[in-house]
Each structure stands twice: as C-alpha cells, then as structure tokens.
C-alpha cells in the first residue's frame, strides 16, 4: 500500500504545480542553507587523524613571570620555549616526540630557468613523519644522525618537487636553501590534514600543504627565521641566540603515547619536570603543566570560528521558517481535498490509512525538496569555496553530509506534514458526503 501511496504522492505533485513548486522550493532553500553551513562546520570540526588522535598530545607550560600574577588564571601560552622543547626531546617520554616551528626559507634551484622563491614549510625532528603519518612519494625521512648534527637535508612537497625536478625521483639532488647547499632526501605525497592540527599557532588552519621540511637542528643552526607566532613575556637578549636562551615560546611540541592510558603518567612526569625547573628558577607561577590531545587542542585553539557557528545557527533558524511556511502550504493543499478524504473514509479506509497516505505525500515533497536542496547546497558550497584556498578546503561535501541532507529534508517534510495530515485524517465522512 505504501508503494501505491508513494505513486499517488508523485501524481499529486502534478495536480497543483504552482503550490507544489513553491513548497519544494521553500524546503530546498531551507535545506540548502542549513546543509551548506553545517557541512563547513562538519569539515572544520572533524578529527584529522581519528585512529590516534587520543594518543597525540601537546604539552604546555606557563613560563610567564610571577609578578602581578593572580593564581588560578589559565596561561595563554600556546607553544614551548626552546629550552623546554630540547629538554622534552631528550626526555624519552612517550613512544615518539617531535618539536617543530614554521619556516619560509628561500629556495634556489640549480636550474637557472626557475627563479628563487620562498617555500613555506616546517622544521621538525625525524619522528614528525611517522607521528603524523606523512606519506612519501620518494625517499624517506632523514636519519636520526641528520637530526643530531643538523645536516643540510630537505624533504620537499610534491608540487615543489615536480616544479624543480619534474616527475622523476629527485632523491639525492641538490638545491640551495637559505643560500646553503642542501640534499633532497625525500618527497612527501599530497598531505593536507584539515585542520592543520600539528601546527595551529600563527597560520591558516585549512588548505595548507607544506612545501619543504628541514631538520629542526638545521633550521636553528642556520637561524632560519620563524614563519608563525612567538610570545615573549620577558625581554629576550638580542638576536637569534638570545631567543634560544629566552623565555619566549615559539615551538610546537607533540608526544605520541602507545596507549591513551599513558596520558596520566605523562602528565605526572610533566608536572615533576615543571617542579624541577622551578627549583632552577624558572616557571615561577607554579601553575600545573597542561596536556591536550588532538581534538582538545583544536578546541583550545578555537579552530572553528564563531562566524561559522553563527552562520549555522541562523541557517537553522531559516530552516525553521521554511518549515512553518511548508506547514501552511500543506494545510492549504490538503484542505481542498477534504471531499476526497470523505469518499475514501466512507468506502472503508481507516483514519490510520488516510494518515499514511498524506504523510507519504509529504515525504515525497520532502524528497523532491531534498534533491533540489542538495543541488543548491553544492552550488552554495562551490560559491563559498571560490573565496580562497582555506574556504575551498572546508567547503566540500562528504558522504556523511550527503546522507544527512536526505535525512534532514525528508524529516523536515514529514515534520511539516504531521499537523496538516492529522487535520486531513480528522475529516468526518458524513459531512463531506452530505455537502457534495
């Protein structure tokens, strides 16, 4: 019977084309608005590395001076000092660990037909590549020995590698980075986690691909300038060497643990480390060390902007309006069919049958609205994605959202159809038949 009702619903779409078109359009617009804003929220707040996001941890210490400090105030530090980063690298805590900072060194190919350019990237330690699962097209990460001595080795992003060396493997080739000869040891594949959780401070969150990686020790040895934020609560000694010795925070640090239960042990170790540093005359505020996993860190850094939440809220308000409108239109559509209901009831159909028939009809309208809404949403997302690379990275529909769109539109239409359907099923057959 449901199939028959579905068929009836389809036919009824044609019966009053203007009214039907208006309903479908209203639903479609409401669905498109809410789905496109929700897609962006969904893409922004997704887990970039689901299988290990609970095992990747960011430590933060409050290194600011104690003068004028109100105990209990949370610290606004987001990165580590060079001193702490080096100590933690040597700590042996967790199964892997890495420290990194953003760089934008000049790259000068040996080929003369391509001019020099700056390549934004990061300077991490070797474990970075396995911790964040960076795919390799050619070659492999540099060795621990390279890390230790600050060797002039570089890993290129795919695009830069192709620009400089064409499609073949450039492993072993030479380039000049910051005026120094470097050896290419690897090429990273298309690696673009969204958000760029491994380095959130002081850069775009979405649609970023690293163009170059060089060892942290090398970047420090060559005094590669920072491409990212630094926060200094006390005045540093002049120059790069001064920064290394200072309490300025500018390095991002990550631990990887074998299981998420090890987090507590790591936290205890960090607290004891902070206490030890206090004895040496640092971290005088005495606040406990903080530890965040990937999702907590994304939340902490406010990656999902307020504007995106605002858009989503207003879009759902808009959808609510579209629903109320559809209720009104359905009421109008069903009310002219009271006599039809009267005849069906007189011929023996139960209220429940009438209810089913009209609800199916509402669902058909919902499906039509959902289909059109999906098209509109794709259009809206394409428009939003045209703004810039960052928007393009998040204005993408995935399967979850696709399924959700359909569910939302049919649910919306059924919800809108409930009241008019109930009204229709309340028709008393005798009165309808008499008034014919």
């Amino acid at each position, binding site marked *: 019977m449901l199939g028959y009702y579905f068929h009836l619903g389809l036919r009824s779409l044609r019966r009053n084309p203007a009214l039907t078109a208006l309903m479908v359009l209203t639903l479609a617009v409401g669905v498109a608005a809410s789905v496109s804003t929700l897609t962006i929220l969904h893409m922004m707040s997704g887990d970039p590395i689901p299988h290990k996001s609970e095992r990747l941890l960011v430590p933060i210490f409050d290194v600011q*001076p104690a003068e004028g400090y109100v105990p209990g105030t949370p610290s606004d530090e987001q990165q580590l000092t060079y001193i702490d980063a080096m100590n933690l690298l040597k700590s042996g805590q967790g199964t892997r660990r890495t420290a990194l900072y953003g760089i934008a060194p000049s790259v000068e190919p040996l080929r003369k037909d391509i*001019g020099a350019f700056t390549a934004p990237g990061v300077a991490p330690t070797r474990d970075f590549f396995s911790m964040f699962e960076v795919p390799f097209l050619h070659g492999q990460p540099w060795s621990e020995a390279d890390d230790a001595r600050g060797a002039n080795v570089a890993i290129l992003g795919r695009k830069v590698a192709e620009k400089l060396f064409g499609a073949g493997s450039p492993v072993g080739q030479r380039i000049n980075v910051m*005026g120094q000869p470097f050896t290419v040891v690897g090429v990273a594949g298309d690696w673009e986690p969204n958000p760029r959780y491994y380095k959130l401070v002081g850069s775009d969150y979405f649609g970023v691909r690293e163009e170059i990686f060089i060892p942290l020790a090398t970047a420090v040895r060559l005094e590669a*300038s920072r491409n990212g934020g630094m926060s200094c609560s006390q005045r540093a000694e002049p120059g790069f060497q001064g920064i290394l010795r200072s309490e300025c925070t500018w390095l991002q640090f990550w631990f990887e643990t074998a299981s998420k239960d090890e987090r507590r042990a790591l936290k205890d170790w960090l607290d004891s480390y902070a206490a030890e540093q206090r004895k040496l005359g640092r971290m005088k505020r005495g606040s406990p060390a903080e530890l965040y996993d990937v999702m907590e860190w994304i939340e902490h850094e406010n990656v999902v902007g307020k504007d995106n*939440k*605002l*858009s989503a809220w207003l879009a759902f308000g*808009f959808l609510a309006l579209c629903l109320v409108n559809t209720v009104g239109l359905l009421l109008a559509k069903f009310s002219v069919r009271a006599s039809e209901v009267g005849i069906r009831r007189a011929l023996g159909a139960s209220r429940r049958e009438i209810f089913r028939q009209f609800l199916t009809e509402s669902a058909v309208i919902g499906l039509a609205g959902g289909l059109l809404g999906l098209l509109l949403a794709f259009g809206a997302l394409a428009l939003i994605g045209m703004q810039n690379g960052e928007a393009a990275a998040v204005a993408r529909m995935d399967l979850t959202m696709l399924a959700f769109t359909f569910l939302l539109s049919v649910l919306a239409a059924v919800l809108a159809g409930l*009241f008019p359907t109930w009204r229709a099923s309340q028709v008393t057959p005798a009165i309808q038949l008499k008034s014919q």
Partner: protein
Amino acid sequence: MEIRPIVSTILRNKTGAILVALQVALSLAILANTLHIVSERRAAAARPSGIADEMAVVKIDVSHLSSDGPEQQLATMKREAELLRAVPGVAAVAQVNQMPMTQSGWNNSVAIDRKQTEESSPSSSYFSPDSLVKAWGLKIVEGRDFLPGEAQDIDINKKDEPRVVILSQALARKLWPDQSPIGKTMYFGTGEGAIEVRVVGMVERLQSHGAEVSARGELSAIAPVRLYGSNQSYTFTIRAEPGQRDRVLRDAEAVLRKASATPVILESRTVERIRKSRYRADMALSWMLVTVSVLLLLITASGIVGMASLWVTQRRKQIGVRRALGARKIDILRYFLLENFLITSSGVAGGVLLGVGLNQLLVSKLEMARLPLDYLVAGSVLLWALGVLAVYGPAWRAASISPALATRST
C-alpha cells in the same frame, strides 16, 4: 470598520493565523539580527587605517639570498631606499617593519611607569627610519614628526634602543586620558628591562597590524628605527603619484632586481589588496547574511500570499453575501488588509521578543554585540509593509468577487 468581527473570525480558525504570525515572528527575529551583524561588519571593514589615499600605497618585501654581514646589509637597505626614491612617479618611500591590516607584525606591551608589573596597554609597534607621516599621509594632531637626526639604525644582534616615539591618538588617550602626551616618558615592556622612550608626537589615527575590531586595533606606536642584521625579509612602503601606482610598482621591482648581484625574492602587495584580504571573511559573511535575509522575506511573503489566497477561496460565498447586502469593494479590501495587519502585528510583537532572545543567545554564546532597538523597529516596519504588499493581491481578488455569487447554491 469594526475590528471585533475580524478578531472573532481569526479566533474561530486559529491555525492559519498562528502559522502566518509565527512566520512573521521568525523572520523578524532573524532579520533584525542579521541586519545588525551585516551593518557591523561593513562598518568595521570601512574603518580608515590612517593611511591617506590607500589606493596610492604599496609595499614590497625584499629578501636577498646572499648571506651578507649586518653592515653590508645596512648599506644595501640604504642604497635600495635611494634607488626607489629615484623611480619616476614615486612620491615617498619608507622602510618599515610592518603594515596596517596585514595581520602579521609586532605586539609590545607599554607602561607609563617603570615600577609597574602590569602593562598599561598593548601596542602595535611600527619601526621606520623614514617619515611614515609623509609616506602614509598620517595626520599629526599634536607635537611633531621625527627630526632627521632622530632616526637610528639598530642591529638586532646588539643591545640598542629607540629613544623617541610617536603614538596614535587612541594609545595616547589610553595612557594619559586628560593630558597632552607630548614630552611624556613611556616604556616598552615592564620592569627593569623596559625601554624608556619620550613621546614627541601624536597622529590622529594609525591602525595596528591586526586591525582588530576591538579598541586594540587603534593602539599603535612608531619609533624612528631601521632594524637590520637578521636574515628575515624587510619591507619598503611606497606612495606613488596619483594614478601611477601599478606602473611605479613594476618599475620599483625592476630597479630592485637589477641592483642586486645575487638573486632576490620580492613580494609586493597594494594596500588595496591588503585591506581586501583582511576583511574578506567579514564581507563573505555579510553577503551570505544578505542572501539569507532576501530569501527570508521572499518566503515569508509567499507564506502570506498563500494563506490569504486560501482564505479568500474558502470565504467566496460569505464575501458574495456581504457584497449582496451592500458592502462595497473597498470594504472587502479593507477587511482583508486589516485582518492581515492584525495577524502581522501579533507576529511582529512575538518577533521582537524572539529577536531579543536570539540576540541574548548570540551575545552569551558567540560574544556578538548587543542588538540596538533601531534594528527591531526597522525590521518591524519592513515586515508590516511586506504584509500589506503580500496580501494586497489576494484581497483585491476577494473584492472583485461578484455579489451574484451569493444567489448560487454552492
């Protein structure tokens, strides 16, 4: 015409009226809030940066691939500034560490007393050995521009400090609310290591590198300093003669490239583009909200038209009877207009409450600004007008119903 029969009609068949009123209320609540946000964002994006005639100003980031020593680098910087000044069509050139609105630059805390442990204010720090007053057309409102002898060249690897500053009016007022800042002593940083400087001038306005919407966006200080000795890129800002910006920029790049023996990387941006990218997200949001508002009004209007048409159809016979009993066309028209007005008004009343509630939610959850009453008033007027316009068509059709209809049986 009495309102009572209309009210009792509405009360007898509440559903439709409630639906229309609910639509009006929802539209008004959303509309007032979106219009407020749109006008706020647009106002923020239109704020002056302090740079006069932004269309004529550009910046060029220069980074050399040679690893020169600090003294050589200083000589190169000075030579490049002279070369740029000689480019035809250049009105002024200044080397500078940062630009307004680029969202990357230097924040410092400033204090007015060395004994302070807390900062008096944050400040965006501009360093330029040349006159930014000339290059950017900043307006001195008190004191003076830097004298040529005050400019310092500071090697960042050595301890050397600026001695004089010019403040933006907002920063000066924040530090000394009712006194003239000229001649006062101020500190970059707090405590023992703070750098003491003397204020020599105040400019009307200079936005920070972040151009924040909060008061912070106007707090800036300029020191007459050229920084050198790092391997970071450095920036020149150029003011071109009117209408010659793009050509001047091309020529300036060519001159810099030609003058360098080793490869040089240049990155240029016009202030026009800097402004555009600073406010891109705000403009995108405001366009989205405008689109939603227009759709909102269309949908509400269609809802009113639909419901009114339904009522007209349902009441054809009654209208015929009224007409036969002597009601004029204008009476029927007025009946529907008044009925709609009553429903819209109750919707508007609900919408005002809903709008204030929605704003409360936005204020508390998303830290948006409080909604001024004007937007609710404007929104209400708009929806009233929309209601009348939307119902006019169906009401006119109702008025055209012939009295003869009353004599027919169905």
